[in-house]
């Protein structure tokens, strides 16, 4: 097999893995959109916030220490203890549920029945708010996640595949973290699909998405459903934050991963959980392959960002609701 071809395959495999990482972020979007028609721009910031919180708890940081120091002239930073990872994760999850409740109670409860764009705007407001709170609470420096996640290419894959090509083929490179992410994503998606399609709460969630008023009228508690999905989305955000934060450290830019998830979402359909995964895979492979074959050699590179959107756009022209999105009902 020619080396170029093998490298092409390597690019595809890595594209698939990158796609899974995008999908992790997209999943959170899908959950909330499905249940409330809210396009939650804050999903990226939620990932940041969750990851910040996890690190902060693990390291025993005093929340809001900066603010406290500034206002009261104190000088406190750490409690001086370290929380074990699992306990910290549990605490973070509890905090995210609290966050979900607060979001619901203080914001979206009051916006029931508003147009989608208004809800969307509110989530942008939420994103700003949460970003500011995250900074105030845990500081804006870069933090290192010490969860002991695997890092680096898998030697094993590299060794057994090295024989496939000639001398200038070094075997496939697959990141161990990406493999873990794939596993996690698979479990998450399977769980969420079962939840949405086959449980009473899942059905109620889809009903709420269609018509808030009607859902209320049959006795579905919007509050409960929304706290539920925001909590789920918060947990998905935590997973995404951890996976992405393992690469880059936990820092502000983590919130920008939302932008990588949008084309995925669009391609897979805003309402489809499997769509998020399939969309992620297509986008991941598509953008990597384009960069490999056309972008880097001919266009000077760095084409991935816009190409992902263009790819999604082209798909949409043929399927306006995305690959797996619910059909847009057009009737008069």
């Amino acid at each position, binding site marked *: 097999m020619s080396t170029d071809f093998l490298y092409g395959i390597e690019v595809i495999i890595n594209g698939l893995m990158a796609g899974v990482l995008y999908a992790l972020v997209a999943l959170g979007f899908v959950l909330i959109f499905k249940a409330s028609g809210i396009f939650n721009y804050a999903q990226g910031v939620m990932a940041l916030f969750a990851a910040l919180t996890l690190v902060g708890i693990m390291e025993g940081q005093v929340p809001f220490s900066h603010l406290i120091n500034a206002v009261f002239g104190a000088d406190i930073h750490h409690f001086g203890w370290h929380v074990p990872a699992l306990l910290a994760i549990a605490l973070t999850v509890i905090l995210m549920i609290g966050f979900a409740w607060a979001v619901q109670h203080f914001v979206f409860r009051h916006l029931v029945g508003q147009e989608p764009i208004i809800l969307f705007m509110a989530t942008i407001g939420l994103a700003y708010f949460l970003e500011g709170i995250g900074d105030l609470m845990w500081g804006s420096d870069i933090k290192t996640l010490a969860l002991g996640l695997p890092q680096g290419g898998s030697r094993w894959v590299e060794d057994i595949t090295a024989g496939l090509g000639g001398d200038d083929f070094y075997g496939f490179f697959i990141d161990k973290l990406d493999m873990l992410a794939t596993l996690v994503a698979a479990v998450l998606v399977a769980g969420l699909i079962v939840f949405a399609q086959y449980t009473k709460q899942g059905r109620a969630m889809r009903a709420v998405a269609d018509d808030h008023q009607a859902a209320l009228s049959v006795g579905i508690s919007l509050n409960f459903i929304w706290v539920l999905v925001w909590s789920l989305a918060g947990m998905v955000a935590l997973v995404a934050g951890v996976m992405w934060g393992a*690469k880059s450290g936990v820092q502000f830019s*983590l919130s920008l991963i939302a932008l990588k998830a949008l084309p995925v979402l669009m391609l897979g359909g805003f309402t489809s959980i499997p769509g998020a995964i399939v969309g992620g895979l297509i986008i991941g492979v598509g953008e990597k392959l384009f960069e490999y074959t056309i972008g880097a050699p001919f266009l000077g590179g760095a084409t991935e960002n816009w190409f992902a959107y263009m790819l999604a756009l082209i798909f949409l022209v043929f399927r306006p609701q995305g690959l797996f999105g619910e059909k847009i009902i057009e009737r008069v």
Partner: protein
Amino acid sequence: ELVIPDLSYRTGPYAAGGTPFSDGYQDYFNLLNARDGGIGGEVVRILECETGYNTEKGVECYESTKGEGALIYQPLSTGITYQLIPKATADNIPMHTLGYGRTSAANGEVFNWVFNYPANYWDAASVAVNYLLDENGDDLDGKKIALVYHNSAYGKEPIRTLEALSEMHGFELTQLAVDHPGQEQKSQWLQIRRERPDYVIMWGWGVMNQVAVQEAANIGFPMENFIGNWWAGAEHDVTPAGMAADGYKSLNMNRVQDYPVLDEIKTLVHDAGNAAGDGSNLGSVLYVRGMYTAMLAADAIAKAQEIHGVSDVTPPMVRDGLEALEMTNARMAELGMEGIGPEFSASCQNHGGSGQGLVQQWNAADGVWVPLTDFIAPDDSVIDPLIAEDSAAFAAENGITPGCL
């Protein structure tokens, strides 16, 4: 009273870099106030203004501080620098953009009010190549060097220089652009893995650095062959990758080591409760750079006071001081920071300094950057014509007749 604005950014995507720099910048002036009662008897008043690395906020900061009698601007952002160059020039306020901003501002005859010593990006590219030449017995012929750069004006700065140098020394240059913010660099590093360049040079900033270091480690690229520029070589760039980052190198224009002045800052500023930040950055790479920048500004002000014989100097006087600045080893030692930067002396023609930089290496076990070399000189024969060309173009476009003030 001397008013020094500090256009800092402690928020947003680049906060991790902006914060220590600003801490160092302010702490040094605080030290001067605490120890010497300011500069030449005049107390320094710092006006901090948060830009968030955002150009519009930068303009707002400039406008709101300039009325207070700001003496010198250092915006720590190439974008803001570009906006401020014409404004500051029109307002007759000097700017100092150390190791960033508009490279051709080194030509003081065109950019009368802008100073970018001790070195600029083109110097940096040349220093990196000179270092590699040195490592390879002055021969880079047939070597492969990859440039991983932030796909923005900043990241594209070294390209021309490196292209010229690759022609000169016969190395093969591969350019790999990374789009902002740089969270996803799989394609670029897979390409590096395929092509196995001998060296990778990186022009990165923000999250791009952390991810690049991690990805380089992931593909098993030898860290000692990976060199970042001086905005890609601070502690926070390497710590997220943990031990895997050990051996990563970067350029620097200010040597990081224990200086007596740091102890003074600790006792006179931090312990007195006047630290600009939370005090945790003392002695870090960017903190030292901020402090070094402040030192240059303070010395220029002192020089201005000396030239004009008044203590309450005006911005144009400070400009004169900046232009007459002379940094010698003796002076730096006197200030308690021996060897912090290269020796240079400014002049009307030369606002860019000597262009020297050094290479430092990350020691992950101890968590410190270790200077590896002395200050290395760039190849002026390559850079000077480029500067002359670019500044001439600017002069032509804006109808400036080059000359001294």
